């Protein structure tokens, strides 16, 4: 009997489906999980210590940024507290040549990539630009229109392949963003092109107020990979070791020509959507408490301490480092920022058009008139 198939149809789903339950390496109590975790392997002690250190620093940055919104120093801040393992675990496996495509939620990931903390906050403070040079850090501007960055990552990754550059693009998105059309187009393009790209979905259970159940009827978000011929992983997003290992597996596969991977990391945002949101309107404090017990930092602290990889002295030094980071951020954010309205016209085009030159001159003339005579 001949099978009915068009050219290109592989008719096999082998190896594409995620595990039934999220894979973890270190459990919520800081113990190694008893079962094997698929392709995941426990990172070396040095990597685990670095994951821990970056999470502690990232958490301090995050709480500092939230505090700055209360003082009116930041217009808005979407916290990633609770998602620390994803923020850090996504970035540390990336090589210098790789690219990160973050969202508004992923400031800690951007800081972890090496962008100075105060530059990351430039936009949220109210500046008109993203605050850093994307080429310097290989970090795209933090993306607010949901899911649109997935396509940029696929394009960049495909261009790398066309030019025989060894580069992988990792794009971060939320559970809500998986419902946007661009996510599907990106997964599809990536699958067809075998683009070296990693999709990391931080499934924190909510898109602002809307719970996952209203977002999808799929058994898991990772399960969607199969529809695009993309292997996928479902992991415990509060286990930094698991996130690191999963991203590592995906980056290695992409770099070796094996194409894209979809990772769903199950996690939770402890804070409201942003400082402007009231989360009590859509979720219970019991639910939040349950997730506080699964804190990504606490579990790695427990694991490292139990093995003598983190003693009180080291923890103390780390706490002091985190305070210095927060001090620096506060200092820079409390300084009055200098804005130059003339620059608004500068980068709309490669060279300002004649019309923009006229508008700039008009604005400057207007400002000069307003200046009190001295």
């Amino acid at each position, binding site marked *: 009997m001949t099978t009915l198939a068009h050219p290109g149809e592989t008719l096999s789903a082998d190896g594409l489906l995620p595990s039934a339950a999220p894979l973890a390496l270190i459990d919520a109590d800081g113990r190694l999980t008893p079962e094997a975790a698929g392709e995941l392997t426990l990172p070396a002690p040095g990597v685990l210590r670095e994951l821990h250190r970056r999470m502690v620093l990232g958490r301090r940055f995050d709480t500092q940024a939230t505090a700055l919104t209360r003082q009116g120093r930041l217009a808005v801040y979407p916290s990633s507290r609770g998602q620390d393992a994803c923020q850090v675990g996504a970035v540390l496996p990336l090589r210098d040549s790789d690219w990160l495509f973050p969202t508004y939620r992923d400031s800690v990931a951007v800081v972890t990539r090496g962008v100075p903390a105060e530059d990351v906050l430039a936009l949220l403070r109210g500046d*008109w*630009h*993203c605050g850093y*040079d*994307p*080429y310097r850090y290989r970090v*795209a*501007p933090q993306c607010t*229109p949901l899911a*649109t960055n*997935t*396509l*940029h*990552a*696929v*394009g*960049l*990754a*495909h*261009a*790398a392949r*066309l*030019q*025989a*550059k060894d*580069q992988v*693009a990792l794009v971060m998105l939320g559970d809500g963003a998986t419902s946007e*059309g*661009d996510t599907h*187009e*990106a997964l*599809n*393009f990536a699958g*067809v092109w075998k683009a070296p790209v990693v999709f990391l979905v931080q499934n924190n259970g909510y898109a602002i107020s809307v719970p996952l159940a209203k977002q999808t009827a799929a058994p898991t978000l990772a399960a969607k990979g199969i529809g695009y011929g993309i292997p996928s992983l479902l992991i415990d997003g509060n286990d930094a070791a698991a996130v690191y290992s999963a991203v590592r597996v995906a980056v290695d596969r992409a770099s070796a020509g094996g194409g894209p991977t979809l990772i769903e990391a199950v996690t939770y945002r402890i804070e409201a959507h942003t400082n402007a949101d009231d989360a009590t309107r859509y979720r219970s404090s019991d639910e939040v408490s349950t997730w506080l017990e699964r804190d990504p930092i606490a579990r790695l602290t427990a694991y490292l301490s139990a093995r003598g990889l983190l003693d009180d002295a080291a923890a103390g030094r780390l706490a002091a480092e985190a305070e210095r980071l927060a001090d620096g951020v506060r200092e820079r954010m409390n300084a009055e920022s200098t804005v130059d309205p003339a*620059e608004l016209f*500068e*980068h*709309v*085009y*490669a060279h300002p*058009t*004649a*019309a923009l030159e006229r508008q700039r001159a008009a604005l400057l003339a207007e400002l000069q008139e307003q200046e009190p005579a001295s």
Partner: protein
Amino acid sequence: MTTVMSASASAEETAAAVPAPVTMAAALNAALADSLAADDRVVVFGEDVGTLGGVFRITDGLASRFGERRVFDTPLAEAGIVGTAIGMAMNGLVPVVEMQFDAFAYPAFEQVTSHLAKLRNRTRGRLALPVVIRVPFGGGIGGVEHHSDSSEAYYTHTPGLRVVTPGTPADAYRLLRQAVACPDPVLFFEPKRRYWSRETAVLSVDGPPVDRAVVRRPGKDVTLIAYGGMVATALEAAAAALEEGWDVEVIDLRSLSPFDDQTLTASVRRTGRAVVVHEAAGFAGYGAEVAARLTEQCFHYLEAPILRVTGFDIPYPPPHLEKFHLPSTDRILDAIARLQWEGDNA
């Protein structure tokens, strides 16, 4: 592994040095071929642009000549095409993508307006996106619904984009080559009703730069402003107007954004009268901007209000009805007649 770098030959101009009859479609094809040959970073992609050569055959033969690393079919998804073009441009390529038809570019609107137009600004000039989006646009070809939109004003209203449209085959070649070389993103509107119109010309990139309007026919009585598919109609109207005693100057805008105030105001100040023509609906259309700008800059030179001849404010009509909708030479002549000429006793 073959790379984009090694796949390209040295610049090999398809353009003949002696004037020869050429269609706009052939001129656009030559512009793409010469752009691909001249610059290794150029890649051409979209729906059916590879093996088929595009539904209008504008990319005919390019995939076989340059290979499918440089000219390729994509899955069917317009946001995907533009979104990935953005990522490719971030990584050093110069994507030239095709939207199959005007109305089928709408799914890409968010990528165009929120990212393509803004990323240079959002990165303080660090991230340039030299992307060209080719859009076959406009009616007059007996197309069924969704195949004849004039969508240019959606894009001209978006700062950060350049919007360009050729009126003649020679200009189609020149403007497309210049658009590919341009560091800004360009929406390149191709008047599909003129794809098969011929001109005897030498295809050359030299000539007026991409952001200048040109006087297609000098005249002293009235300035008739057109672009894209309406340039030929405007020239026909100008020829007919001569019989009525009006010497009409026809300006082909070429660049809708930025707008060439200089060429336009110079003409209108000379003639004192102006009519602007386009296929798109008139309400909040491109002609409103032209009329407003010229009124602001030429008020004391004007003998009459600037008039618009446009499509009606209706969804684009079906094939048998489109002739009632499209601006015709008669409608243009009527508008010229209403420009409060001396001796009128209105």
